């Protein structure tokens, strides 16, 4: 084998988790953006004056929407990774005899 897995809790493990979370959230944000804007036209939204004027320009709205979604999907993915990793640590400790 070329490499061993990074040790739990190490900086490289954190980087691996961030990388995976970035990637999965990127995919989810992409799907979310296309589904969202298939039903909502930023140009029509702009007619209600409920959104800032620069967002009425469609490419700007698409781009901003994508990064908005990415931010939140990344937060969810990163939190999931953190919860799974930390639960493993907690349960590993409780296996030693301390509940």
């Amino acid at each position, binding site marked *: *084998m*070329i*490499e*061993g*897995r*990074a040790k739990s809790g*190490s*900086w*490289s*493990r954190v*980087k*691996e988790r961030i*990388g*995976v979370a970035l*990637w*999965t959230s990127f*995919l989810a944000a992409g799907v979310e953006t*296309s*589904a969202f*804007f*298939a*039903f909502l*036209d930023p140009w*029509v939204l702009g*007619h*209600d004056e409920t959104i800032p004027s620069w967002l009425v320009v*469609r*490419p*700007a709205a*698409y*781009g901003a929407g994508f990064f908005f979604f990415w931010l939140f999907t990344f937060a969810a993915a990163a939190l999931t990774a953190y919860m799974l990793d930390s639960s493993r640590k907690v349960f590993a400790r409780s296996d030693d005899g301390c509940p």
Partner: protein
Amino acid sequence: MMELASAIQSPYAAHRKVYPREVSGRFAKLRNIAVIVLLGLFYGLPWVQWNHRQAILFDLPARKFYLFGLTLFPQDFYLLTWLLIIAALSLFFFTALAGRLWCGYACPQTVWTEIFIWMERLTEGNRSQQMKLDRAPWRGRKILRKGAKQILWASFAAFTGFTFVGFFSPIESLAREVVSAHLSAWELFWVVFYGLATYGNAGFLREQVCKYMCPYARFQSAMFDRNTLVISYDATRGEPRGLHPRRPSQVGRSGDCVDCTLCVQVCPTGIDIRQGLQYECIACAACIDACDAVMDKVGTARGLIRYSTQAEIDGAVRRVLRPRILIYGCVLLALLAGFGYAISHRAPFDLDVLRDRNTLYRELDDGRVENVFSLRIINKDQRGHQYRLAAEGLNGAMIDSDTPTLFVDPEEVTTVVVRVRVPGGQQHGGRDFKILAQALDSPNLRAASRARFFSP
């Protein structure tokens, strides 16, 4: 032994750079053809014209997708979803049939990595020259070769980003904008974004994308069964490895594997196929080509490493037609047929009604009540049509608009503001009704949309 360079800094820890050795043979040829065809399609398609416009253009600002003779609107979004489901199921079907064909030959990650490796070989030389160069101190020759590689990579990545944006923004005017340095901020941003992604994925991450990032690599084994084509090492024939078969003392007790490790050196993911099927294996068949060449030289039969199935290795007969294949195949066919039907029976035009949200209703001087709506007519036809608007389901309702009829150009969307007026005192509160659009030149072309009329 396998030679490895020292660990390099990368997004994933303890990663050692893989230096895949150059390989030639049947499957390498096949892979090269796949690279040329797929990259040719990617870089060439945006330049193809169809009916005086770009053949494939996802025009996001105009909210229209052009696919040769077909124009898709946001209302056809379900077709795109459908297409994605078909793509996913095709992946399942081909995986069950022939393993990771997708990974080895068609995945963009593989295809672009192949091109980037090719540029690396052009500037840094073959495998051993690359390893020597990486160990050498940073002096003239190294800086020159590495610099040349980076320039090649960066320009190719930038061109890739440009082509990618060319699928979304007409590529000919995009090219003019690049030449005159007039790219819009968003165009520039996405060119750089996609260029950087290509550069990072194909230049540096490479097999790590398959190992750590790709979801398909993780679940593809769910589609595998004993009759799926996989690349496997024939251990019964190969072991014990390393003994020379021609030495008289070893005749009869040596395997065919001469332990040259070429199969390991050519592997783009750096695994040893002789340890059995591993999830890192992207089924590129480079090890088959390498081993076949060695077997030819040694004078034994090819196929020590070959495409095979678990059943075959265990001595059973290969079965291609099995329930899994038939089920995947039938579902795929049904989806394709449904997709074809949906495309050919698309409604030729759509009508969307949006209420003016600023005022619920307005009372006119003559006592009538007025509601304002904005209508969107989406003409998906290749011809333009004249439409007449009408209100249905409201007593005495009249539609007042700036023009009595409305002309919508082929494949265009027109928005018009209309005022619906009813005599006063007839009703109170909200009431549902329909707005109709009828093409004057064709009685079959009509659409209705529900709306709500409010009165005091």
